[in-house]
């Protein structure tokens, strides 16, 4: 007897075979693509103080060192981190109960003391924020941690895209002259969000 396979049977056989091999092939293709493409990171930096300057620049420059594509969007107070001269960066102990207050000088036992000076006492001392910032910078230097200008330079050298928020420039009366020339572009949220969508990791700092 001559059995001719009809279309329905062929379809069914193909479907079953595909169900068997497709999942594995897809997994393999995805894994291969993941191996070949570098990771990507977008960061939205919104803070302009010395302590908050560290996370975006450390993460951005390290990701770039690992070969990732990195874009950083500086908005609101984060725009300050794109200023030409960064010596104004300060840290405030006010409202920062998580900040250890250890003196970066003197004998070891002295350096271990966490002074925990209450806010009420600090605020009557004029210039306590400048003092806190100086002590923080000294601590950072003592421990061989990079300065913010160093980290920013490393990020630029590694090819990180630095993007400024145009709205913030207008809002606080800045001009593009205030910022470093390496800023790639000044855009708005509608331009940055699609970049963030395509990134593997997207952070709001």
């Amino acid at each position: 007897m001559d059995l001719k396979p009809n279309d329905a049977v062929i379809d069914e056989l193909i479907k079953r075979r595909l169900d068997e091999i497709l999942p594995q092939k897809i997994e393999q293709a995805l894994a291969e693509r993941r191996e070949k493409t570098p990771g990507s990171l977008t960061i939205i930096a919104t803070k302009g103080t010395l302590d908050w300057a560290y996370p975006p620049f450390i993460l951005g420059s390290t990701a770039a060192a690992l070969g990732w594509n990195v874009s950083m969007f500086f908005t609101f107070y984060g725009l300050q981190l794109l200023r030409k001269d960064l010596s104004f960066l300060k840290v405030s102990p006010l409202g920062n109960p998580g900040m250890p207050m250890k003196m970066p000088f003197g004998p070891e036992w002295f350096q271990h003391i966490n002074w925990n000076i209450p806010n009420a006492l600090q605020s009557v001392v004029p210039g306590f924020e400048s003092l806190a910032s100086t002590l923080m910078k000294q601590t950072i230097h003592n421990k061989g941690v990079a300065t913010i200008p160093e980290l920013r330079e490393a990020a630029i050298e590694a090819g990180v895209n630095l993007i400024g928020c145009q709205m913030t420039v207008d809002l606080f009366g800045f001009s593009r002259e205030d910022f470093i020339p390496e800023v790639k572009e000044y855009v708005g949220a509608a331009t940055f969000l699609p970049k963030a969508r395509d990134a593997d990791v997207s952070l709001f700092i």
Partner: protein
Amino acid sequence: MADVVLDAKGLNCPLPILRTKKTLQTMQPGGLLEVQATDPGSVADFESFCRQTGNQLISSIKEGDVYKFVLKRK
């Protein structure tokens, strides 16, 4: 034995990695770079760096207080 030695002693994250990347860029493919660091976190960081960038981590040892890594530039 190493073509270039990078002294990253006393430097903390992420400087050892950043300096390494910068130094590797100046080297020829296949060149050997020895990095000396005191940051304990650098052990895991160098493994991760090599995995991510395709540079080969030839050795990772600790001599006294100093961690020594030998990398082969890809």
